[in-house]
C-alpha cells in the first residue's frame, strides 16, 4: 500500500514544490529542477514497477458524504499503461536535458510534467468511478499551462487558441463523462469499478444503459479523440512543446480508451453493444480522414497528430468488435501508439527546434545524410506507424481488423466487414503518407543546411523507444499476456 501511495505522492509533491518554487530556481540553477524531477520520475517509476509486481490495493473512505472512496489498485489492463506512463515521464525529462524548454521558468515546466504524470497514474490506478473522473481532470490545467506558456511562440494568437481549444473540449468531454459516471453509479448503486465490471450491467434497463453509454462515449470520444470531435488535437499538438506533445499523444489519449474499457464496455455491455456500430463507423471514418489529411498536410507535427487520429480509429474499431481478440487488439494498439507516437513526437520536436519550423515544403538536408541517428529513428517510427509486421504497430491494427471481421454475435456482421475493408484502405493510405514523409525528409542527398545529430539525453530516449518498438513488435505477448485475463473477464459476458 505504501508503494502505491508513494507512486502518487512523489509526483504530487515534487510537482507542487517545483511550481511553487518557481523563483528559487531561476535562472542559474535550471539543471537542478531537471535533476530533481528526473530523480522524482525515476523513483516514481520504481514504485510503479513495484506496484505492478506486487499488486497492492489501497481502499480508504475519502468523501463519505458522497460515497467516494480513495480506491487504487493495479490489474492486468492498467499495468502496461502504468509502465508506459512512468517510462515516458522519465523520457520527457531526460529529453529536456538536451532540449530545455523555452518560454518561462523551467521549474514550472517540470512541475507541470510531474502533475501530468500524477493525473495519468491516478487515472489508471483508480478503482472508484468518481476518483477516476477527478484524476482525469488533474492533467488538464498542467497540460494547459504547458501548451499556453511553453508552446510554440511564433504565433501567440494561435497558441492561445490551441490551448483554449484543448482545455474547453476536454472539459466538455469530462463533464459529459461525469454525468455519465454519476448516472452509472446511481443506477448500479456502486462506484467500485471492479464491482461494476463484475455485475456486467445486470439490473440496468436497456434504455438506461444506452443513455449512460452514449454520454460516456461522447465524453471520452473527445479525449480519444474520435472523428468529428478530434478538431482540438492537431492545433494542440502543433503548438505544444515536445514534452507536452509526447505526454498528450502517448498518455492522455490513452486515458480515453482506457475509460471506455473500464466504464462502458465492462459495466454496460448491452448499452455499448447498441452503440458499437456507430462507434465503429466514426472510428473508421477517423482512420480514413486522418490518413487523407496526412497525405496533404505540410506541418510535420500536425501530420503526426492526424496520424494519431487514424491510429486511435483502429483502437476504436477493436473496441467495437465486442470480442476478446478485439479488446486485446485495442489495448495493444493503445500501447503501440503510445510508444510510436512518443518516438515520433520526440523526433519531430527535436527536428522542429533544429529547423526552426516543421514545414515539409521547405527544402532541408536529408536526415539520412546529416544525422543518421535521427534518420534511423524516423524510419523505424514511420515503419511502425504504417503497420509493418515485426514492429509494434502491426499487431494492434492487424488484430483489430481481424476481430472486426468476425465480431461478436450481437454486432451487425456485414457492416463490420465493410468497415474492415475501409479500414484496410485507410491502412494503405497510412503507408502512402509514411513513405511521403520519409521521401521528403529522410532520403535525398542534400547536406545543407546541416544540423547536429541526436546526442546525450535525446539520443538515449530515441534509442530506448526504438528498442521498445522492436521488442514489442517481436514479442507482443509481453503486453497481451498481461491484459488477457482482465479482458477475458470483461468479454465473457459480452460475447455470450
Amino acid at each position, binding site marked *: 500500500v505504501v508503494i502505491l501511495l508513494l507512486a502518487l505522492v512523489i509526483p504530487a509533491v515534487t510537482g*507542487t514544490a517545483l511550481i*511553487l518554487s*518557481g*523563483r528559487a530556481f531561476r535562472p542559474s540553477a535550471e539543471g537542478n529542477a531537471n535533476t530533481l524531477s528526473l530523480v522524482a520520475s525515476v523513483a516514481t517509476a520504481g514504485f510503479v514497477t513495484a506496484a505492478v509486481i506486487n499488486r497492492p490495493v489501497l481502499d480508504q473512505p*475519502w*468523501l*463519505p*458524504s*458522497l460515497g467516494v472512496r480513495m480506491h487504487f489498485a493495479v490489474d492486468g489492463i492498467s499495468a502496461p499503461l502504468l509502465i508506459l506512463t512512468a517510462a515516458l515521464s522519465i523520457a520527457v525529462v531526460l529529453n529536456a536535458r538536451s532540449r530545455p524548454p523555452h*518560454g*518561462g521558468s523551467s521549474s514550472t515546466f517540470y512541475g507541470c510534467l510531474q502533475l501530468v504524470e500524477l*493525473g495519468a497514474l491516478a487515472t489508471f490506478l483508480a478503482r472508484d468511478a*468518481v476518483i477516476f*473522473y*477527478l484524476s482525469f*481532470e*488533474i492533467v*488538464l*490545467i498542467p497540460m*494547459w*499551462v504547458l501548451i*499556453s*506558456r511553453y508552446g510554440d511562440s511564433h504565433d*501567440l494568437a494561435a497558441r*492561445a487558441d490551441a*490551448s*483554449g481549444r484543448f*482545455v*474547453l473540449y476536454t*472539459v*466538455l468531454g469530462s*463533464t*459529459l463523462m*461525469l*454525468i455519465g459516471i*454519476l*448516472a452509472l453509479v*446511481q443506477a448500479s448503486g456502486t462506484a467500485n469499478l471492479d464491482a461494476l465490471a463484475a455485475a456486467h450491467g445486470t439490473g440496468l434497463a436497456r434504455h438506461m444503459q444506452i*443513455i449512460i453509454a452514449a454520454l460516456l462515449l461522447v465524453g471520452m470520444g473527445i479525449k480519444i479523440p474520435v472523428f468529428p470531435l478530434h478538431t482540438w488535437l492537431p492545433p494542440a499538438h502543433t503548438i505544444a512543446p515536445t514534452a507536452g506533445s509526447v505526454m498528450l499523444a502517448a498518455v492522455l489519449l490513452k486515458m480515453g480508451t482506457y475509460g471506455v474499457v473500464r466504464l462502458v464496455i465492462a459495466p454496460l455491455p448491452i448499452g455499448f453493444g447498441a452503440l458499437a456500430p456507430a462507434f465503429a463507423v466514426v472510428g473508421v471514418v477517423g482512420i480514413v480522414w486522418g490518413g487523407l489529411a496526412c497525405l496533404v498536410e505540410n506541418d510535420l507535427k500536425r501530420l503526426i497528430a492526424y496520424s494519431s487520429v487514424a491510429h486511435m480509429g483502429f483502437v476504436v474499431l477493436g473496441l467495437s468488435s465486442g470480442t476478446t481478440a478485439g479488446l486485446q487488439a485495442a489495448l495493444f494498439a493503445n500501447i503501440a501508439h503510445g510508444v510510436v507516437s512518443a518516438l515520433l513526437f520526440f523526433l519531430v520536436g527535436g527536428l522542429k527546434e533544429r529547423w526552426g519550423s516543421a514545414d515539409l515544403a521547405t527544402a532541408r538536408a536529408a536526415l539520412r545524410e546529416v544525422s543518421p541517428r535521427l534518420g534511423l529513428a524516423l524510419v523505424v517510427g514511420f515503419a511502425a506507424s504504417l503497420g509493418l509486421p515485426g514492429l509494434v504497430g502491426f499487431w494492434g491494427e492487424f488484430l483489430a481488423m481481424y476481430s472486426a471481421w468476425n465480431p461478436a454475435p450481437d454486432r451487425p456482421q456485414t457492416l463490420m466487414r465493410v468497415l474492415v475493408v475501409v479500414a484496410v484502405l485507410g491502412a494503405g493510405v497510412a503507408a502512402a503518407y509514411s513513405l511521403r514523409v520519409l521521401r521528403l525528409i529522410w532520403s535525398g542527398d542534400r547536406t545543407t543546411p546541416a544540423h547536429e545529430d541526436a546526442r546525450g539525453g535525446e539520443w538515449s530516449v530515441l534509442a530506448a523507444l526504438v528498442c521498445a518498438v522492436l521488442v514489442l513488435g517481436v514479442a507482443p505477448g509481453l503486453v497481451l499476456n498481461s491484459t488477457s485475463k482482465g479482458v477475458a473477464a470483461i468479454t465473457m459476458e459480452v460475447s455470450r
Partner: protein
Amino acid sequence: MSQAVVSVNAGTLLPVLAPAVGAAVVLVTDVAVQHLRRVHYLIALASLVVGAVATFAGLGMVAGAARRTLCLPAGGQCMYVADSVTTTLQLAALLAAALTLLLSWPDDKKQSPGSTAVIMSLVLTATAGATAVAGAHDVGSWLVALELATLPTVALVALRGARSAISGAIALLTAALVSFALLALSAALWFTATGSGFLTPAAALVGFHDPVRRPILVLAVVVLIAGIGFKLSLVPFHAWTPEAYDGAPLPIAAFLAGVSKIAAAAALLVVIQAVAPLGEPPLAAMAIVAAVSMTLGNIMALRQDGVVRLLAWSTVAQAGWVVLPLAAVSSAAVHASGAYLLAYVLATLLAFAVVAALVQIRGAARARDLTEYRGLLSAHPVLASALGLALLSLAGLPPGVLGLVAKVAALRPVVTSELWVLAIVAAANAVLGVAVYLRWLLKVISSPEASEQASPPAVPDGAAPVAARAIRAHPATLVAVGLTAVALVLTSLSPQMLLGMLGR
C-alpha cells in the same frame, strides 16, 4: 407547567444573537467614546468569532437532527430550527463577514471618523439577518430576517458617496424593494394556502391536498422563488448585480458576494425543505432559472474587462449552479446546494481578497482592470497563486478540488432525477465557466514582457496618494488572503471537512 409564551434557549440562538448584540455594543460605544476606530473593529470581529464558535455544536449532526428554540409551549412548533446545513451556512456567513471586516480595515483611514461605527454596525446587522433567516421557520421572522440581511447592504454600498456607488446602491435598493414586495406577497399567499404561519412540510401538505388552495400554494412558491431570485442574482432578476458590485467599495462587494448570497440561499433552503414533499411541480421553475442563470452569467462574464464586473457576472452563473440541484427534490439536493454554495463563497472571497490586496499595491484602476493582470505570476507570485487557486476552484478544476467536488455534488441530484437536458446544459456551462476563469488565469500566468510597454502604469485619478503610498498590502488584507487560501487548500485536500459539516 406554564411557561412564557415561547421557550428561549440563548445558547442555540447565539449565532444570531452574537452579531446583533455586537452591533448594539458598537453603537453604544460610539456614543460613549467618539472617534474610535480599532475598538469598533475588534468588537465586531469578537462578536463574529463568538457567533462562529457557537455554531460548532450544531455541525455534522445526523440527518433529521436539529437544534430548536423559540418553541410554542407543550411541544408545539418551533420558530427557530437549525439543522446541520443551517448551522454550516451560519458559520460560513459569520466567517465571511469577519473576512469582509479584515478587508475593509485598511480603507478605514480614508473615511470620516464616525463612519467606522456605522459600517461595523451595518455589517453586523446584515450578518445577524443572514444567520437568523437560515434558522427561521415561521413566515414572519423569515421575512424580517431576510430584509434585515438585505437593507443594511444598500447603506453599505452607498456610504462611499461616489456616483458609481450611488447608482449601485439605487440598483440594489430597487431590487431589494421589488423582492420584498414579492416576498411579502408570497408570505400572504402562503398563509392563505396553508393557514399556517410556519414554513414546514406539514403546513405545505395541508394546502397541497386541498384542491381549492393548491393553486394558491403553487403561486406562493413561484412568487417566492422570484423574490429570492432577486437576492440570489438569478436571471431574470440579476440586473442589479454588476452595478452594485462595481459601485460598491471592494470589501462591500465581497460582502454582497459572500454573506448576502449565503443569506439568500439559506432563506431559499428553508422554503425548499418545507415544500419538498410536494414533489416536482412548483420546482420545475427552478430548473429553468438555473439553466438560464448559468448560461447568461457565463456568457456575460466572458465579455467583461473589469474584474469586479467579471466576478459579479460569475456570481450570477454560480447562483445558477447553487440552485441547480434544487431542481431535483430531495434532502441530498439541499445538501448539494449547500456544499456548492460553500465552495463558491470560499473561492469568491479568496478572489476578492486578492483583488483587494492588489488595489492597495497597484491602485484601484489597475487592480480592477483585467488586462493589467498580465504577468501577475512573476510580479506577485504568492498573490497570483492564491488567485489561481480561487479561479480554478470556481472553474471546478484541480488543483481546486473543492470546486470539482462541489460540481460533482451539484450534478448528482440532477442525474439521479434523470433530468438529462438540464444535465447537458450544466455540462455546457461547465465549459463556459472554464473559459471565463481561464481567460483571467491566462493573463495571470503569461509572461509580462509583452504588456509592460503596451500599457503605461495607470495613475488612478483621485486616488493617487494611495498608489504612491501603498507598495505592500495592509497586513489585515494579507491575513484575509492567507486564511482563505489555507482554508481552500485544506478543503481541497480533504473536501470531507466541509461536506461533513453539512451533516451525515
